[in-house]
């Protein structure tokens, strides 16, 4: 039994969609006005960071870095006509990571004074030296030049914390009303907002001040047929974004019509929650009487709001070098895409599969100027014309694959957690030939169109996966032919990506993302985006998930 169990207890009763009683993301609950108060001052931070770096060096560290972090979060939860919970949280403190006797040590403190920082640095060195006794190979860091005093900020138009809570509540309740007016029995909605104010300094001579923003509106709509006892849900087709409140203000130019016959709308860099909630209610009701899928092989046409999760699980995680090397073997697992497998030159996917890792792309969850070990971020190819060409790496991993620079993939969820390798934005490049979704569907004889995230599961080496979705439509002889239910597809990562037949052009490209991607022990969350255009996969095995119980 742990504290997190105790905290989580009230959430247990809240159902699978949301945990409305959860008081926030951690940190101290504060008045919302506090989220706009400036606290971090680069000059003061430099002095504090130097205290830690100097103490670490004096205690015997050969390298040290410091992260002074102020992590601000706000969540608003509603259901039907009422507010369930509003929480504004602040977490402030510093983490010191050191290399001593060739071994990592880490300690964190919320006593952010020169003395407190020095004490944390000394403790980190003490831990490193204790662990060095059972260490065999010294940690080797890729060289990294110091950047001096630099800064970076997510290019937001409106800080979400500047928007009054009443306005956010009003918007969520209006979305709930749209869902109820259109036939939903229940609706839960939520808005998550994050601001990471991070100051990084290292013995390499970097002093990096960053201000990172993220936002995620979402909901779940449930329709019930009391007579039969059947219920169905439809989730929001929004995406978590590395943006400010401007994402919540819908713009016509950001809307892309879904396939003819579905009524679906895809959202680019702004989201119309009212429109989506109304459609969600209609679709949740339609799902109650939709035809149950006949299992078999189908050509799948996957919307970016669905495909993003498939990319995340089957490419993003599979190409994290720490997993490839075995550092995550006891929890998330390893990867089939080992260094030996890469050497064999087997195709990961078909020629149309070009996948890029990216920490620069605007509006993405992973976009930062520098990672959490002071490496300037970049974009690089992971899969080129179907072939695996590279992995995602941190400074202490680059030498293992014969490289001499990190990819800037180091991240910690807060000041009190140690930074480690996390996924960059990993995205499928759009097709270079002009191709719309409707044109793609015209070429499909027997297929299924899938939009939205649903159930997802993949093995610990990223071979075998099963994905569901939020809405499914039959495609017959080049046309959408009504809604389907009970759909899940099972595939092997390499077979699946090798069956990739075509991807739509750039005009269809959209982001989706994971706001709470878990990894590591103790587990940490990170946020990451995945961009793609609607993409076709041929001959994928579809199963029927309907069961009879009671």
């Amino acid at each position: 039994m742990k504290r997190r169990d105790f905290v989580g207890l009230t959430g247990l009763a809240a159902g699978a969609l949301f945990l409305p009683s959860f008081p926030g993301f951690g940190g101290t609950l504060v008045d919302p006005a506090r989220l706009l108060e400036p606290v971090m001052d680069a000059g003061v931070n430099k002095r504090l960071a130097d205290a830690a770096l100097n103490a670490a060096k004096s205690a015997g560290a050969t390298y040290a870095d410091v992260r002074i972090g102020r992590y601000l979060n706000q969540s608003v939860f509603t259901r039907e006509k009422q507010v369930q919970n509003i929480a504004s949280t602040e977490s402030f403190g510093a983490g010191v990571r050191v290399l001593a006797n060739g071994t990592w040590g880490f300690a964190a403190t919320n006593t952010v004074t020169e003395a407190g920082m020095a004490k944390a640095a000394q403790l980190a060195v003490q831990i490193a030296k204790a662990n060095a006794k059972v260490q065999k190979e010294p940690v080797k860091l890729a060289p990294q030049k110091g950047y001096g005093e630099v800064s970076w900020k997510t290019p937001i138009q409106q800080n979400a914390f500047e928007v009054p809570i009443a306005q956010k509540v009003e918007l969520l309740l209006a979305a709930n009303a749209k869902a109820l007016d259109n036939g939903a029995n229940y609706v839960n909605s939520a808005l998550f907002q994050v601001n990471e104010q991070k100051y990084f300094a290292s013995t390499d001579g970097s002093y990096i001040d960053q201000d990172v923003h993220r936002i995620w509106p979402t909901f779940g709509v449930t329709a019930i047929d009391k007579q039969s006892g059947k219920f169905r849900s439809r989730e929001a087709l929004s995406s978590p974004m590395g943006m400010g409140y401007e994402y919540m203000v819908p713009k016509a130019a950001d809307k892309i019509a879904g396939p003819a016959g579905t009524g679906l709308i895809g959202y680019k860099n702004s989201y119309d929650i009212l429109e989506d909630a109304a459609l969600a209610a209609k679709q949740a009701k339609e799902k109650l009487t939709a035809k149950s899928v006949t299992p078999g092989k189908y050509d799948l046409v996957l919307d970016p709001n669905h495909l993003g999760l498939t990319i995340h699980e089957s490419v993003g995680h599979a190409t994290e070098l720490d997993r490839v090397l075995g550092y995550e073997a006891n929890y998330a697992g390893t990867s089939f895409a080992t260094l030996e497998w890469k050497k064999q030159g087997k195709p990961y996917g078909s020629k149309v599969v070009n996948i890029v890792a990216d920490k620069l792309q605007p509006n993405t969850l992973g976009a930062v100027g520098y990672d959490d070990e002071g490496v300037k971020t970049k974009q690089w190819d992971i899969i080129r014309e179907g072939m695996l060409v590279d992995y995602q790496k941190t400074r202490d991993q680059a030498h293992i694959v014969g490289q001499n620079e990190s990819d800037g993939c180091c991240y910690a969820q807060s000041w009190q957690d140690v930074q480690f390798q996390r996924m960059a934005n990993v995205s499928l490049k759009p097709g270079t030939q002009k191709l719309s979704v409707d044109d793609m569907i015209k070429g499909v004889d027997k297929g299924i169109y899938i939009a939205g995230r649903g159930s997802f599961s993949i093995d610990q080496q990223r071979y075998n996966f099963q994905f569901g979705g939020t809405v499914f439509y039959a495609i017959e002889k080049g046309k959408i032919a009504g809604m389907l239910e009970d759909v899940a597809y099972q595939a092997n990562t390499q077979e699946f990506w090798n069956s990739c037949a075509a991807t739509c052009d750039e005009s269809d490209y959209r982001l989706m993302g994971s706001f709470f991607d878990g990894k590591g022990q103790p587990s940490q969350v990170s946020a990451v985006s995945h961009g793609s255009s609607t993409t076709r996969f041929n001959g994928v095995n579809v199963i029927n998930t309907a069961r009879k119980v009671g």
Partner: protein
Amino acid sequence: MAILSKDDANTILKKVLSFSKADECEVTLNGSSGGNIRTARNMVSTSGAVDNVSVVVESRFGKRSGIATCNEFDDNTLRRCVQRAEEIARLAPESPEYMPMLGPQTYLQPNAFAQNTAGITPDYRAKQAGASIALCDQKKLSSAAFLEDTAGFVAKRNSKGLEAYQQYTNLDFSVTVRTPDGTGSGYAMADYTDIGKFDAGRLTQIAADKAAGSVGAKAIEPGKYTVILEPAALVSNSDASLLGALMNAFDARSADEGRSFLSKKGGGNKKGEKLFDPRVTIYSDPTHPEIPDLAFAGDGRPRQKTTWIEKGVVKNMFSSRFWAQKSGIDATPPPGAFIMEGGTQSTQDLIKSTAKGILVTRLWYIRPVDPQTLLYTGLTRDGTFYIENGKIKHPIKNFRFNESPIIMLNNLEAIGRPQRLAGNLIPPLKIRDFTFTSLSDAV
């Protein structure tokens, strides 16, 4: 400072309450201190220490509620924290689900704290991790492990006279051992209130044996098989699990609202209905000596010994106080951990009585597919074996399953002896017609 005595905690709680000007005020102190060490590739990768105490103040004016927290204990900080909770409460909308704070309660007295666990040092962690690594070095195997220990307390007091205090300790250890060529993998996990019996080397040996035994796995056709599910295939502290999912679904409100497997056609819920094999009994008891738990829920409600499923019949569901009042039922809080009654047979005994079947060590990446039927999917991992004529014949490749715990607990063949895992007490189960839907190449 992380673990305050009852008296020290009360001094702070009383002081905070004395600052309150609200209609109702409740103060909770949470403190914990502990650490962790992580290894991979037979080396230490990360380790850390955590120490924190926080105060949570909930203030209410009528049906308006505000919550604020702080982690410093001088009078000014505490006073400001109370003021902030009151300011937030004044601005909050009235809660249509308001329930008055609880008055004095009587709690059970679980013995959930062990001094030797609270006394763990960084050297102890390094020594245990070192023992695990040394065993794998010697056998030329590769291990990755995680050890995490916590000692903590929770204290609560409110303006209506509620008083609660409890200390607890816990240690979790898990280890994955792989053969150097990546063709074999084994796993072991355990958790303890008292670390007297903890031995990382012994657990690593179990994982190492499974790793060696799983080399040379053969593919067999997916389909319906008789399986023996070891406890680590039924509950988990790092993933969703089949029995955890079942217990999480015992919420009365979801059932009454029509969106649960416990919802009844035409309305209402299935309390009192027989939904499982008559040998299935699941209950919770915070005073159980093998899995002592907190005696109160997050909102201060006492946790009593509660039977959720008795001889296959749904006996109780948990509920918020609001929903309980609205629907005229007892406001039973959700369990912190649960106990599935079992027999005396070991996993080995279950294997002996199996003509043909599959031994599943562990299930992984378990996700809901259909909440209506509690259908879940996931995969076997870290040691899956074919059984023939009462013996393990050979290792087999991993499978993906699509199965519902409701169906599973109706297809019960035999129940083994319960053991502690992830804070629960869970027996190995023999199940017929467990549905595997595809093969996985993962090791």
